[in-house]
């Protein structure tokens, strides 16, 4: 008993204690939210059409943004992993910009390129697409703040694929595009999927940029904010609890799919 006590490292004990506090810091507010919310109020939130619509809007816009922008982000990630070009560090820095700028400022910036006066806004209107106060604008705002997560994860994934395999595939007569789809992408798939989940999750929870581009229709984070400012904490918690539960369920499911793959 004494010897096993002596074997315990004080450093390990201290680090475990400090790490435990961090975990508690993350879990306690979420757990507290559920402990302080009755099942009845959550049931009422589920029955509330406005709440259901906002959760659904958050889910599909963030997923749409992730899918749409993955067509651009994944090729860029591959280039960054494989090619050296002038000012590559600058490009890497630009990709991380949305992470460091305040999200309300990001919203203002995105709004600037989506208004009817902008080239993009005018071009989109020709095709009947409106950004301001529209899901299309929400998608753009969500993608802007969350795209670095996909690019960075995919870039690391592609960089971990041995370049030799791609070159061997070329010597076997495969075209570079076939090599990308049959060798590089399947081998980097876990990291790409990780980035996909992170981008989707980050977009889903976005508030600052979205509220500036589109207060209406309301995404779940915007609705939670509105319920809080208009009716107080008591009325916003059930909506928040429901939204967090939905996000967690999907997040866990995607993590399991990734683990299985």
């Amino acid at each position, binding site marked *: 008993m004494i010897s096993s006590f002596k074997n315990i490292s004080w450093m390990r004990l201290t680090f475990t204690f400090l790490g435990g506090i961090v975990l508690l810091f993350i879990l306690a507010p979420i757990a507290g939210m559920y402990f302080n919310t009755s099942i009845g109020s959550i049931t009422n939130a589920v029955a509330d059409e406005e709440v259901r619509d906002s959760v659904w809007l958050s889910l599909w816009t963030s997923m749409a943004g992730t899918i749409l922008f993955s067509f651009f982000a994944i090729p860029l990630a591959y280039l960054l992993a494989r090619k050296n070009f002038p000012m590559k560090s600058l490009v890497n820095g630009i990709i991380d910009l949305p992470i460091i700028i305040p999200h309300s400022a990001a919203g203002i910036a995105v709004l600037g390129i989506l208004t009817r006066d902008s080239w993009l806004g005018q071009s989109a209107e020709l095709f009947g697409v409106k950004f301001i106060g529209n899901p299309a604008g929400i998608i753009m705002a969500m993608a802007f703040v969350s795209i670095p997560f996909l690019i960075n994860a995919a870039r690391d994934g592609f960089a971990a694929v041995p370049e030799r395999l791609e070159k061997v595939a070329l010597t*076997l007569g495969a075209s570079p595009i076939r090599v990308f789809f049959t060798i590089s992408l399947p081998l980097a798939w876990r990291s790409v999927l990780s980035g996909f989940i992170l981008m989707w999750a980050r977009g889903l929870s976005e508030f600052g940029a979205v509220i500036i581009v589109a207060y209406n229709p309301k995404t779940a984070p915007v609705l939670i904010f509105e319920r809080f400012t208009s009716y107080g904490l008591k009325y916003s918690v059930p909506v928040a609890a429901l939204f967090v539960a939905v996000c967690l369920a999907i997040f866990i499911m995607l993590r399991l799919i990734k683990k299985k793959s």
Partner: protein
Amino acid sequence: MLKLENISLRVGEFELNNISFEVERGDYFVILGLSGVGKSLLLESIAGLIRPSSGKIFLRDEDITWKKIQERKVSIVYQDADLFPHLTVFENIAYPLKSDGEKDIKAKVLACAGKVGATEFLYRKPETLSGGEYQRVSLARSLAADNDIFLLDEPLASLDSKSKSEMRMLLRQLNRNGITIIHVTHDYEEAISLASKIGVMENGTLVHVAAPEEVFRHPKSEFIAHFIGAKNFFRGNLKTIPQSDLKEFSVNGISMFCLTDVEDGEVFLTIQPEEISISAEAEKGSSRNHFKGKIIDIAPAKVGFEVIVNIGTELIALISGDSKKELKLEIGKEVWVNFKASSCKVYN
């Protein structure tokens, strides 16, 4: 079939300097050299994975120096880790067939796997294969690509002796069936057992390209010289001495007298350790070469002792235990080394 003209390139610390050689259809050309001399770089430049900074590569009478990798019809097989890990053996072998739009993929995969003895593990993943099985699949995949020239980068290095011998048989068989092979290795035995022609590589340069018998009979590199037991091996200049039947060989500022009919110029010289004697004073006899030097090492040999003496360059002498005792030889002691001019074997 393949011709390299003055290929030079540099990647990090490795470089190739003015490499030129020619390989005929059906040749088994082994590039022999120590690790880090640029052997793999040479293969990768032929396959197009690295572009040379100067020089030209011709394949099947066509300049392919700047041709795309996928259009060269050249297969490369590495020591390990070149099978696609997410595909089964079958899918690996089928990979080039899909690029070619082959219709009967299954029949072709079975035929290629059959040629290398890989039919028993077609549905396994590469990570489950032994070293020998892995290399067989890699070769089967190259056969499926229908390439008639294979570049092999140390393909037997990670195999046990039984698998090595089986793979050698397989490689000889593929070569007999018309596949031209360029194989890089650091293993002399592998080179002797497989090569129809050997290229010896040192510091990014091909120093000797010849048939195996010639390479080992007349070494032109320290690497080969050590292998065949020629421990005192020098590369230097030979010069006729007027009014004498002797010639002067210069290396590192030292001159040795040689009895040889080899023409003046850059030559190679070997002296067998047993031809060198050690004495406390310069010997007065028929020996023409006497050098004073310091003993830097004494090591037991199979019989007797090898004494390494620094005379400005290192010379190894083989002496008996009795002589060592009698002369009280020890590291740091100054001695004389002596050998006859006729003991110097000179060739160009």
